[in-house]
């Protein structure tokens, strides 16, 4: 067996994945070939190095998060979707568009009647207009004349139609 054909087989050999027939051929070659022996040792060193690396672990709260989400999901499945629940991705995705739609509806509800009012004839807007101020002078009074008026024991100076 030539060294070139050994290269790929060495990885499978180290991983315990080489077929038994190939194992015999490879081991026979390794007894004769120092270069392939060094290649084998290099691969084993890489394997030891990879195995020596610290193992990444999940965040401490992740299992609780998953269990809570799973429980909420089961409850949701029994009583129907609960889009308001914090774990609902549907709700998380939809909440801003829904808020914008609600704001737009509110704005339309306020603005459109006002715009329609501006387009309507004056006689149709009469119920919402402030009544014109009517100054009625009592008999014998003249406009601008100050008349003392008693109101609950308090004397007010009244000028035609207004108090001061």
């Amino acid at each position, binding site marked *: 067996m030539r060294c070139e054909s050994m290269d790929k087989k060495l*990885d*499978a050999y180290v*991983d315990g994945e080489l077929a038994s027939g190939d194992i015999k051929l490879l081991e026979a070659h390794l007894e004769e070939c120092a270069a392939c022996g060094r290649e084998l040792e290099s691969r084993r060193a890489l394997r030891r*190095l990879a195995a020596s690396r610290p*193992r*990444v*672990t999940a*965040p401490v709260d992740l299992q609780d998060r998953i269990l809570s989400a799973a429980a909420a999901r089961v409850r949701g499945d029994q009583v129907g979707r609960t889009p308001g629940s914090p774990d609902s991705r549907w709700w998380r995705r939809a909440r801003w568009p829904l808020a914008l739609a609600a704001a737009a509806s509110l704005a339309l509800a306020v603005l459109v009647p006002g715009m329609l009012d501006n387009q309507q004839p004056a006689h149709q807007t009469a119920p919402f207009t402030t009544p014109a101020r009517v100054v009625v002078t009592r008999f014998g009074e003249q406009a601008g004349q100050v008349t003392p008026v008693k109101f609950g024991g308090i004397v007010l100076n009244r000028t035609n139609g207004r108090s001061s």
Partner: protein
Amino acid sequence: MSIQQLTDQYLDQVFRFLCVLIQDRDTAADLTQDTFLKLQDLPRSNELPSEAYVLATARNTALSWLRRRKLERKHVEVLTHDELNLQGKSSRAEAPDRVIESRELGAALDAALEALPEDFRVVFHLSEVEGLSYAHIAEVVDCPTGTVASRKHLAVQRLRAHLKESGHAL
């Protein structure tokens, strides 16, 4: 089989695999949650699903997410081991020089792994870290066993070349 049993058995493994696949810790945590919620939908059974099945579900979840986000690897903040929760440090006392040398070599391997293409990185991780057989890796990554062997070989070649370039020939 309950979600509690599933997470007890596979949580760290799924999270670790998704970290390798996505290279972003927060996203890996979200996708780990999605993976277990998918597994919750499995028909009721007394037996836990196989390791390969669980990891294949995690991979499919990650691929769906990647497709959805059209996220390319170059846009992902590369996660180094130093930023992750680490445990399982060697308890054997080592001389300071050897510790530094070992740390440098380990950091060089981490950098080399991060530089690997995703297909090679995943196969190397599943083989060397999780200890899966080629047949099980093939099940996880949905490719023939021969392809797994080729990817593993190429991953080893590239890692050794990377280590050699950084002055850490094995």
